[in-house]
């Protein structure tokens, strides 16, 4: 029974925006200002903007670590104050402001960790992008699935499948592009299973997702132990895609080398993200897909085939996620390792929610997580005196805080997770 309240008929009341965001921001801002600024380290940090082989080299920026902490800390406090004022006025903090906040906090943290050392900024940015690619592609696959109303917990399994097939097929065929295709097809097949179970058999979509993840992990572990470790050279040695700098664009200082000196997997991501946005919001197919995700019954009554729409979008989403998985192996380190995806599929799911099921916002969120993973790798090398175990936890803690603190109750596509039963 749909009760339709008739808004616009009633007198309006002032909207109260929750102060959760400004309070959290305030806490973090004070932590940054205090720990990294006022009580920060006094050693100099050398911000390395460029790498050795850059076309245009910028000189290093030398600054005291605690100075960075103080400056950024103050900026963060200012942003928190702005957010508070906006909340009082009844406006929600815009997403871009939250991202600026997050980015500044991360830079302050980096400056503190790098006290007395150099901070290879270009290197970090570049790696953040590379690490963000599987997350972003996984998230795109997740968005495609959830926008038509199918909850996709199996992104983790899709990434793992993609990583595995890319490495193994790439090695066996001595052709990385075949590995790429195999990765995409493998993940798409996994999607088809999810789609079939969720659409045709009406099984709880979350359970199917969890089960598929367990299954993929089991199968890849088995094959890894039984075959790949015995015969590694012939089965699990694909190498990686070559780095292909884009002439002209890669010469731009700082961001050039980071964004445009990359592998094909990254460039494919640059193409896929805007294309998905365009299809989803500007085309007929996208309108129908979104209709299916919001109100499948209504879509059915205008003649849209709900099952078929869901099936194809979930499957093609699998192709994209498979590409993300390939980016983990042949787009980064090469060989496949046990449980290669290590929870990144779930971080991708968090990215989907944080990005409000929108390709561009999700990509920005993926970049933020990419930073947090780089942090883990780089901080290990720099050895600042924090136990490595806590540094390892950073991406997960960030995800947790993001999902709990900044998301609240976002609006998923209205029919997300509900199977559609035809009469």
């Amino acid at each position, binding site marked *: 029974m749909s009760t339709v309240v008739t808004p616009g008929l009633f007198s309006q009341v002032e909207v109260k925006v929750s102060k959760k965001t400004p309070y959290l921001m305030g806490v973090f801002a004070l932590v940054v200002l205090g720990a990294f600024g006022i009580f920060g380290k006094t050693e100099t940090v050398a911000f390395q903007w460029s790498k050795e082989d850059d076309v245009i080299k910028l000189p290093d920026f030398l600054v005291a670590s605690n100075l960075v902490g103080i400056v950024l800390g103050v900026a963060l406090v200012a942003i928190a104050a702005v957010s508070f004022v906006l909340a009082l006025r009844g406006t929600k903090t815009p997403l871009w402001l939250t991202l600026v906040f997050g980015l500044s906090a991360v830079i302050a943290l980096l400056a503190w960790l790098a006290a007395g050392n150099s901070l290879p900024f270009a290197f970090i940015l570049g790696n953040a992008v590379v690490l963000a690619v599987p997350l972003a592609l996984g998230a795109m696959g997740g968005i495609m699935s959830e926008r038509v109303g199918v909850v996709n*917990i199996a992104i983790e399994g899709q990434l793992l499948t993609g990583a595995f097939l890319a490495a193994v097929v790439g090695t066996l065929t001595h052709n990385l592009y075949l590995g790429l295709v195999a990765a995409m097809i493998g993940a798409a097949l996994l999607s088809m299973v999810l789609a079939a*179970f969720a659409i*045709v*058999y*009406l*099984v*709880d979509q*979350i*359970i*199917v997702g*969890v*089960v*598929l993840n*367990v*299954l993929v*992990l*089991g*199968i890849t*572990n*088995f*094959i890894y*132990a*039984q*075959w790949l470790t015995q015969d590694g050279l012939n089965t699990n040695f694909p190498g990686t895609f070559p780095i292909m700098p884009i002439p002209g664009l890669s010469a731009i200082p700082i961001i050039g080398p980071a964004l445009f000196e990359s592998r094909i997997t990254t460039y494919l991501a640059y193409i896929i993200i805007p294309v998905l946005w365009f299809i989803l919001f500007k085309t007929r197919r996208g309108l129908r897909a979104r209709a299916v995700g919001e109100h499948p019954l209504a879509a059915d009554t205008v003649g849209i085939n709900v099952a078929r729409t869901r099936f194809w979008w979930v499957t093609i989403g699998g192709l994209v996620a498979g590409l993300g998985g390939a980016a983990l192996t042949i787009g980064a380190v090469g060989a496949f390792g046990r449980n290669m995806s290590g*929870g990144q599929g*779930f971080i991708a*799911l*968090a990215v989907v*929610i944080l990005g409000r099921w929108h390709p561009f916002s999700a990509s920005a969120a993926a970049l933020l997580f990419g930073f947090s993973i780089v942090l883990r790798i780089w901080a290990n090398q720099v050895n600042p005196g924090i*136990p490595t*175990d*806590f540094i*390892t*936890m950073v991406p*997960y*803690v960030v*995800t*947790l805080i993001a*999902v*709990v*603190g900044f*998301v*609240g*109750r976002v609006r998923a596509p209205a029919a997300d997770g509900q199977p559609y039963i035809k009469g």
Partner: protein
Amino acid sequence: MNNAAETPVVNRGNAVLKEILSGGATRALLSVLLGFVVGAIFMVFSNEAFLTAAQYFTARPTDSLAAAWTAIADGYSALFRGSIYNYAADDIVVAFRPLTETLRFAGPLIASGLGIALAFRVGLFNIGASGQLLFGALWATWISTRVSLPWGLHLIVAALVAILASAAYAAVVGFLKARTGAHEVIVTIMMNYIAAGILTYFFRTPELLREVDGGGTPKSDAPAETAQLPYLLGDQYTLHWGFILAIVGVFAYWWIMERSTMGYRFRMVGHNADAARTAGINVERTFMIAMAVSGAFVGLAAVNQALGARAGMTPDIDGTIGFDAITVALLGSSTAPGVLLAGLLFGAFKAGAPAMQVIGLSPEITGVVQGFIVLFIAAPPLVRAIFRLPPPQKSTVVADWWRSLVTKGGRK
């Protein structure tokens, strides 16, 4: 419907049979069977003898088939020898050890499976069993290695601490869900990683829980003798009281879910949270309490792992229990007897691993079988289609009879 045109059930015996065949227990059995079939396929295709013979399949098919059969037979007989009865052993004690190993492994699986099952029935997805287990094990290890208490008391205190710690860790998830609406799947998974990190840190730091005279790898001391779970069948076997705890857990679960009013409210929220709210139930608080109780059951598994050990422990003390618990709960349809049987089955898989390793079969194969069993369980129509079972029947003869047995005085 009030409509009169209902076809009367003609053959009662037929109807009952159909009802049984379309029911959950049958499907569970068949799903297990199918899982084993898939496992057999994997065994065959990873067997060297078969792969060699397959190359000349058309010339001499019998070689391939014989190799295939041998692969399957060797694989499953190894599983049997490792998990139930070692018929190849000389003395009777060694022969029965596999069964005790199965029970020992089954203990934590049953306990954590109960926890996940309870969460399922309240409508929650508790994917955080491994994190809850690690957190509980952390505190149990602290009590068992850094605190001295007399025998009996030491064990009890350590066990209680484990259960409470696991419950608290799980309650956080419930709290976050209630207060912020955070998606519990993501929260629990992140907390898994966080717990692992915390435990590793504690096991790595000498001042905290790292073993005395330890090296670089994170490892704790063995639990003090006064805190260890005593052996159940003497020193010949490593089966300890942890299994009994799990059995107690089964009865506790059954009583909570089927007999108690708290379990009644859990089930209500799980079926229809809106109606529960209208009936006066505080749904948010129910989520928190349910997660806490779920965590408490996982805590029983933590007790198993932390206080059943006889040597120092490493941060992977949870093994694969986290995800195994989910498969146990699913196969057991979130019921007490179901979880017990499913836990025993998957415990057998774990016990059989070394025996399979001996014949060159990677024990991960049981993970594959387990995964496929649960996949089949999760798709009733699929299994129905494969075996041409009848669809869910309108006849409720068997269901009513079972319900009248289980819920006292419910007969019409």
